[in-house]
């Protein structure tokens, strides 16, 4: 690492210090986001903080280890956590549909809520369609933070095409809700029948014509009923999205980008880092998982390979030759990982990095999470 680089990411300062109230883990799929989030949360809890971890799509055995067997969309106490210092850990798994239902219920009258919840368009939107997860994860984060029951909330982001979609959500929702489309869709159901034709300005005729032609009368009516029913709660919806965005921007939030030393994952990490910086989001740094290292006491790669070759010509030393080849392969991998990490560091000199050594097995219990936590905290 060069002298000018920001240096090491101190996750313990995030986990234990009381300045940080929210940690958001983002990164490509398969890099250990959920495990990192859970490990940071557990470490903070065992240090004495009251912590909630919100996961989106945890691996089954990791979920079980945290007692996440029920999907009731509310944080539940995790058993087996050391509470000796006065902290505790609550965990929850996001239920996308339920979160959406709750938003509807809390923003409108019971009668209207029933009407919305029964609408076929709403049902498809809230349960079967991709994209809803991003909105609902951030909605849930806002709710949990507003309850102020936790010193620290750790959240992992959905495994989406672009895990930062949620940054755009408030603005998109805002411009959509303020936009002409929503008025266009809302008008007929409100004004009834053909009245909307009069309300529309020049140029809208072709648009409504097109929409009717594409959607067909029945679907259009469903959408219109849905929009009309939502109308009363739109203001609140938008406000919430903006509040959550503002919350993410505050210095009490820390974004942690997670990656592994593979080209694709690091490319995604670069994209996330640049995007967060461009939006002025509080970026804490990069966690580089599964970094292969090599302890002291070995040979150089060249020495090991040359020695293995020499032994090929001598009978009776197949075992040693194999061990030397294995050693050379490990060295190649650790050199490669180090080079990839260094390349990222050079391209992003202001981003602190925590390197987490590769573990021999997957993590699926609290002990495994503690070990990851230790490795995250250890000076490397």
């Amino acid at each position: 690492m060069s002298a000018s680089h920001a240096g090491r990411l101190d996750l313990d300062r995030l986990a234990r210090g009381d300045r940080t109230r929210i940690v958001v883990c983002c990164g490509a799929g398969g890099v250990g986001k959920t495990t990192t989030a859970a490990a940071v949360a557990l470490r903070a809890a065992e240090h004495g903080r009251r912590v909630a971890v919100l996961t989106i799509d945890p691996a089954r055995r990791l979920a079980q280890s945290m007692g996440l067997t029920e999907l009731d969309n509310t944080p539940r106490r995790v058993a087996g956590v050391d509470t000796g210092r006065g902290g505790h850990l609550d965990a929850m798994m996001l239920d996308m549909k339920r979160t959406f239902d709750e938003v509807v219920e809390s923003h409108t009258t019971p009668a209207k809520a029933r009407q919305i919840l029964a609408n076929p368009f709403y049902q498809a939107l809230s349960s079967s369609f991709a994209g809803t997860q991003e909105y609902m994860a951030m909605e849930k984060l806002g709710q949990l933070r507003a309850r102020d029951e936790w010193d620290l909330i750790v959240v992992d982001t959905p495994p989406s095409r672009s895990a930062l979609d949620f940054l755009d959500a408030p603005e998109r929702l805002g411009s959509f809700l303020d936009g002409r489309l929503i008025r266009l869709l809302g008008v007929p159901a409100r004004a009834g029948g053909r009245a909307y034709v009069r309300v529309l300005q020049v140029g809208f005729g072709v648009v409504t014509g097109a929409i009717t032609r594409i959607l067909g009368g029945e679907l259009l009516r469903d959408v219109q009923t849905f929009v009309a029913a939502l109308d009363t709660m739109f203001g609140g919806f938008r406000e919430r999205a903006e509040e959550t965005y503002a919350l993410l921007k505050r210095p009490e939030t820390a974004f942690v980008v997670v990656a592994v030393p593979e080209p694709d994952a690091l490319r995604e990490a670069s994209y996330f880092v640049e995007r967060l910086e461009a939006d002025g989001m509080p970026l804490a740094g990069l966690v580089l998982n599964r970094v292969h290292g090599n302890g002291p006491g070995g040979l150089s790669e060249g020495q090991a390979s040359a020695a293995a070759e020499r032994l090929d010509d001598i009978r009776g030393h197949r075992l040693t030759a194999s061990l030397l080849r294995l050693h050379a392969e490990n060295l190649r991998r650790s050199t490669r990982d180090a080079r990839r990490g260094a390349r990222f560091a050079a391209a992003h000199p202001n981003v602190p990095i925590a390197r987490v050594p590769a573990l021999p097995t997957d993590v699926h219990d609290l002990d495994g999470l503690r070990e990851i936590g230790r490795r995250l905290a250890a000076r490397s």
Partner: protein
Amino acid sequence: MSDWEGVRLHVVTGKGGTGKTTVAAALALALAQGGRRVLLVEVEERQGLAQLFDVPPLPYSERKLAVARGGGDVFGLAVDAREAMYEYLDTYYHLARAGRALDRIGVIEFATTIAPGMRDVLLTGKTYEETRRRRPNQSYVYDAVVLDAPPTGRIARFLSVNTAVLSLARVGPINRHAAAITELITSPRTAVHLVTVLEEMPVQETADAVKGLERAEIPVGAIVVNQIRPPHLGVRDLAAARRGRLDRAAVTSGLRAAGLDGSDALVDHLTAEAAAHANRVALEKRERAAVSTLDRPTYELPRIPDGIDLTALYELGAALSAQGAA
């Protein structure tokens, strides 16, 4: 003889980090072998194909990416939801002009970025169109289409988005279009191949995805076990290494025979590495057994240590054909 005669749409998915884009590209090369035309489609706006084939970013039109062995062609297409929306409006409703009006009031933005699910409808729709495109003489433009699809966690939802649309639009043009796409995706002309590596979480996700696809009545194709590293030790040495009982004296004398210092520290280091290696091989064996319980045709691909280039893609493609994938 290919395991997938009659399949026109090969969907390739996998957990992040398992190499699904690489496998999709290798499969396309394998399918194109001997003079066939294959289209490789990406839908996640990552320009993964351009990266992989080392060409400039792909536009929203087919570009030739590579020539297969024996003269076939692999074309690439990066589907963009916005362009797909314009095209859809023009093709099905002759609404090219209205498209611009729709754009001005935010309909296109809404459909491609805000409205959940709409993106997936457009992306699967475009893939469907490419699969059935014909020349004036009625022959197919592409002999096969390979879709580099979203990851396993989202694949069943992605592919069944049109079923959800059917329940919304019960009549009309959207209904007909969604029904046609659903028909293709649930027919034997489609196969969804799952890429995994021999680690616990990817294998578990693969098993979950198989169940999800079966529930949605989408045909599951092969399991591709990627990034296989052959063990460095034989079965008996592996067992000994795990128990910490490798023959230290033999290692010491081997090191000396090679002209190295056979110090205890070096022997410790090498045997510790051997133990870690043996544990990983044992774990891989367990995961391989888990893969075999899924009872699907399974192909194995070696790990390419120094990054994937075109040469590596040819090698992987050849390995896939040799095992019956094409």
